[in-house]
């Protein structure tokens, strides 16, 4: 029971309280770039979730079972990047095969998941937070992806409504999007400090 609570708290922490987009400002490139429509945003969120879950887990495994025993922490970045790039390739092939319209809609942003800071971020933060078992690593890295999905979907929903709003001419496009992002971050600041 105690273990389950730890996992639940870790999950809620990365989804709401320590959401990577809102508190660490990582992954803002697709967050602003693919949040024009909610269906694409959801697709992007799910793709990122898959990659974070896969690469977070794999990097934890490689780190805990190979790099740390061999005292090769110094090669962490290179190993992580190889793993992330491989995972993204996998996602790209999968999306292209089964969701061609989504593949068209993502365009350059799909291969760019490999440079998404959320993903390298979670791989490195797992170490910083001292995650010490595999289950925790899986839950936290999946939660990070879900947190990103939540963020990008909220943003997309607001932007779809904004498309109908009467925005002053000087603020149309990027400025109003950035203001929205700022306000959204402020709202999520309300969770700050609740967990961890």
């Amino acid at each position, binding site marked *: 029971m105690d273990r389950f609570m730890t996992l639940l708290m870790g999950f809620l922490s990365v989804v709401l309280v320590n959401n990577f987009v809102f508190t660490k400002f990582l992954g803002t490139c697709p967050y602003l770039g693919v949040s024009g429509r909610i269906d694409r945003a959801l697709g992007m969120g799910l793709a990122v979730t898959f990659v974070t879950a896969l690469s977070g887990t794999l990097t934890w495994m490689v780190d805990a079972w190979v790099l740390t025993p*061999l005292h*090769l922490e*110094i090669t962490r970045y290179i*190993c992580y990047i*190889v793993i992330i790039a491989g995972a993204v*390739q996998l996602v790209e*092939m*999968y999306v*292209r*095969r089964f969701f061609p319209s989504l593949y068209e809609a993502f365009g350059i942003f799909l291969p760019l998941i490999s440079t998404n800071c959320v993903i390298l971020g979670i791989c490195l933060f797992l170490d910083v937070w001292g995650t010490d078992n595999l289950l925790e690593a899986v839950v936290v890295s999946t939660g990070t992806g879900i947190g990103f999905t939540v963020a990008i979907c909220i943003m997309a929903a607001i932007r779809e409504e904004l498309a109908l709003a009467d925005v002053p001419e000087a603020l149309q496009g990027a400025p109003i999007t950035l203001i929205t992002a700022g306000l959204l971050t402020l709202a999520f600041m309300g969770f700050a400090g609740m967990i961890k």
Partner: protein
Amino acid sequence: MMASQLSSSSMLHQLWSTAWPAGVTMLGLALAFAIVLLIASRRLRVEVDPRVEQIAGLLPHAGCGACGFAGCDQYAQAVLMDAQLIGRCAPGGPDVAGRIAGMLNLQIDRSGPPVRPIVLCRAHLADRTHYAAYRGIPGCMAANALANAQACKFGCLGFGDCVRACKFNAVRVVDGLATVNYRKCTGCGACSKACPRNLIVRVPFGHDPMMTVACSSRENGKTTRAMCQVGCIGCGLCARQSDTFKVEDNLARLDYAKYAPSGQHEAACNKCPTAAIVYRGQSAPAPRPPNAK
């Protein structure tokens, strides 16, 4: 001496003992991923119609967007689905259209003149009136928003929005006037979309040089004369020479489809009191100065 040698060799030893497990780990990781991705690429292969790639290979890949699609690859896909879209590729012209048609086992009608842009203004800096010097943002879009950037509200502003729009380096601003180099122009129409005053029209270029009334001023003759030395004043002298000219809203227009070199057109060009009727094209002669008032 001994000590430093010893320490450097031990450092080398340390480096080596760290380096080989790192190398083996990296190679192992890379190998594992290579195998996984190889299997995945076999399992998740997407069959692309080879004809799409063939058509894409024929296209010039200028990325101008004249066809109305996001890029050459999207256009290739669309052409395969709907053969009526053949010939939308302006940079490729009839040549590419013919080759795509040949590939799809179709025949196309190759008649019809190419479409080329004409700038409907011929006023260089010295010909125009300026009330004051414009020192705002150097772009036509910005200058056009200001009512008095120059006296004529219809003429070329000369800040080169069309120059920046052209992917083929075919437009230059010469002495304050956008000038098309018809040797480089492919007729994609990017410049005519970029012009905030809609000065650049795309016309069927049946003959080279093509005649045109190079003015867009709809002001009455007196006002036009006050603003510009080479503007059309709507006097109608050209329309009396040839019925391919029509005067509407104080502005003469030539029906480009009906134009063919003739004595009547030559006379209309020579009679124009402000010399607003000029030739445009690869072999266009230099425009003559306006008649003395």
